[in-house]
């Protein structure tokens, strides 16, 4: 590090700060860390932060009272990245309900209605309306295109003047303040001339840091760490274009693991590549749990077939605002775990297009399924990967050129730096599913500091009173609950019918607020 580099910049964490659970201005002064006041800071800067800021701005909170601390340049940056690498192109349709609109807190007009209004033909106008009217019985669910959602987010983020509230940098930790509220430590960019760390002093903190990280299946992890050709084992949520590139140059077999939506997208890409480029790719799909048909008790029965559990969205719809949400609200401890289990494991939507493509692949014999547990992966000859699969009483050996892990395993929240610090120093604890324990209001339990409150939303709070927290709807539910809780404390106005109508009209006319 050069003398002019980061180490030379003023204001860094001291051992005393790192060790102490509760901080004072004096302690920060001793470390030369400047203090900046902001009544509320949102940490993360992705869609979780955006939805809360959107709600609060609509509730009348001025931009000067809100700060978003983030390394991201736009709130949809992480979302766009994850969708792109998991094989969703801009024109592709997401797995998201038409009235699930992160750019519009009311969910009205839905994306289907907006698509109809924007259409330039009668057919284009009627098709989405007919589909949304007859879904999901006579037609498939209407889901928005990725580009439609991102365009709408961009429009809304300008409308609420979101960029004015963003402070660039990486949050290192949040600690309680001796006189109430919190200090949030932001590490500024290396190129910045500001102090290395800035402490944001706020009464309220909102935490929406997204997924703690990708996690590979244990056998894949071992292979990646030990094998020479580790790039042949990839996670579907990381860039893996090289797999498709290499398959175009040399035919090979791809082993797909997992049976959720991402597996469907990867299979679609592999099939399209094969069809469009005349390839000879073969696919071996490994199912840990093979769903042969509809399953579950009479009143909790999910469709299934060909190995997949079929479900329109990430969760059964009623978790976001129906009887399943009510039921989740009443569960604690072991009962909560059982309730989440009853919602079923991985699922994918039943789409005719995918069914047809997989049906053809099966008929032509280049798509095969194996049901079992992969015990180990070994490097084989000619850059192949050899998998030992335990199937019933026997062990099967399968060879592949590439393995794509679509299981979507997530790291423990303890591996996320800010969350780990919160668990260690601020009293936060884990919920029955091991994530951050939050109240129904999304306040992080046991972290209250004087009159200050710390909230969290998104993936870190999975396992709480609302299932499906890492979805557009889940983020909006959390945002409204937090806004209502803040309104009770006088931070903002509660969103009543009149204000809601007035603000909706401003949304509809794209009036900057």
């Amino acid at each position, binding site marked *: 590090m050069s003398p002019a580099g980061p180490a030379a910049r003023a204001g860094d964490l001291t051992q005393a700060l790192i060790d102490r659970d509760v901080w004072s201005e004096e302690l920060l002064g001793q470390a030369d860390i400047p203090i900046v006041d902001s009544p509320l800071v949102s940490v993360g800067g992705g869609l979780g932060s955006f939805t809360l800021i959107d709600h609060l701005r609509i509730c009348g909170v001025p931009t000067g009272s809100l700060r978003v601390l983030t390394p991201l340049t736009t709130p949809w940056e992480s979302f766009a990245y994850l969708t792109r690498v998991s094989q969703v192109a801009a024109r592709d349709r997401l797995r998201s309900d038409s009235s699930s609109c992160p750019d519009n807190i*009311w969910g009205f007009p839905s994306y289907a209605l907006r698509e109809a209004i924007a259409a330039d033909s009668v057919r284009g106008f009627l098709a989405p309306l007919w589909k*949304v009217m*007859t879904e999901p019985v006579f037609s498939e669910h209407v889901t928005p295109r990725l580009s439609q959602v991102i365009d709408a987010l961009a429009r809304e983020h300008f409308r609420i003047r979101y960029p004015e509230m963003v402070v660039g940098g990486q949050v290192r930790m949040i600690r309680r303040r001796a006189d109430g509220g919190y200090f949030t430590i932001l590490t500024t960019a290396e190129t910045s001339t500001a102090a290395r760390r800035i402490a944001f002093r706020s009464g309220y903190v909102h935490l929406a840091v997204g997924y703690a990280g990708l996690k590979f299946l244990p056998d894949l992890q071992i292979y990646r760490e030990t094998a020479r050709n580790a790039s042949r084992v990839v996670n579907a949520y990381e860039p893996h274009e090289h797999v498709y590139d290499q398959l175009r140059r040399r035919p090979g077999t791809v082993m797909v693991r997992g049976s959720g939506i991402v597996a469907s997208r990867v299979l679609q890409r592999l099939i399209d590549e094969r069809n469009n480029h005349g390839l000879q790719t073969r696919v071996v799909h490994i199912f840990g749990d093979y769903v042969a048909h509809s399953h579950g008790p009479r009143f909790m029965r999910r469709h299934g077939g060909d190995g997949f559990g079929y479900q329109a969205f990430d969760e059964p719809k009623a978790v976001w605002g129906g009887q399943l949400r009510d039921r989740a609200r009443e569960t604690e401890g072991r009962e909560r775990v059982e309730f989440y289990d009853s919602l079923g494991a991985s699922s994918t939507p039943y789409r005719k297009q995918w069914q047809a493509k997989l049906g053809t692949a099966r008929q032509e014999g280049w798509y095969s399924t194996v049901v079992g547990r992969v015990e180990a992966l070994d490097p084989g000859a000619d850059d192949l990967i050899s998998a030992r699969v335990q199937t019933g009483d026997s062990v099967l050996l399968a060879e592949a050129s590439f393995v794509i892990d679509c299981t979507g395993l997530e790291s423990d929240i303890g591996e996320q730096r800010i969350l780990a610090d919160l668990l260690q120093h601020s009293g936060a604890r884990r919920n029955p599913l091991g994530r951050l324990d939050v109240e129904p209001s999304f306040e992080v339990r046991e972290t209250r500091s004087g009159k200050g409150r710390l909230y969290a939303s998104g993936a870190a709070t999975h396992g709480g009173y609302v299932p499906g927290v890492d979805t557009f709807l889940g983020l909006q539910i959390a945002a409204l609950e937090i806004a209502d809780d803040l309104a009770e404390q006088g931070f903002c106005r509660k969103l009543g*019918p009149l204000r809601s109508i007035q603000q909706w009209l401003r949304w509809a006319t794209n009036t900057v607020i």
Partner: protein
Amino acid sequence: MTYSLAGRLQTRILIFGVLGGAWTAVITPILPTRLPLGASFRMTFSVLLLTIVLGVFWELGYHLLQQFRWDKDWPTMFSLLAGVPEGLLVWLLLETDSWFWDVPVTPRGFWLLFISLWLVVWIVLSGPIRVLLVRRRWRGGRLFG
């Protein structure tokens, strides 16, 4: 929509009562009932009242059917089509002598009222209601509790 039972009942009573009541009041004077205005109002508000009262029982049935759905949702098409049996039942009760409540009723007036009432409520519940009552969709259709 993902209704809870309480949400269904509240929607039936309050949304039909307030929105349906307003619509019925506005449309009755121009309905071709071929009845005096007073009798027209008696007919139209009897239809509305029956739609609400019988609707409470219909909702119990719908909720039972909803339990067979994995998503525990109620597709918008179901809400629209429910108007067919519900309208027929109200018509039969009012038109045949089996009903103890003697209300003058004319087919054209009845069906124009019922269909327009059903469509107005269905359209409002399909989207615009969310602007007025922002929390309703997160609470299984409940306005209270």
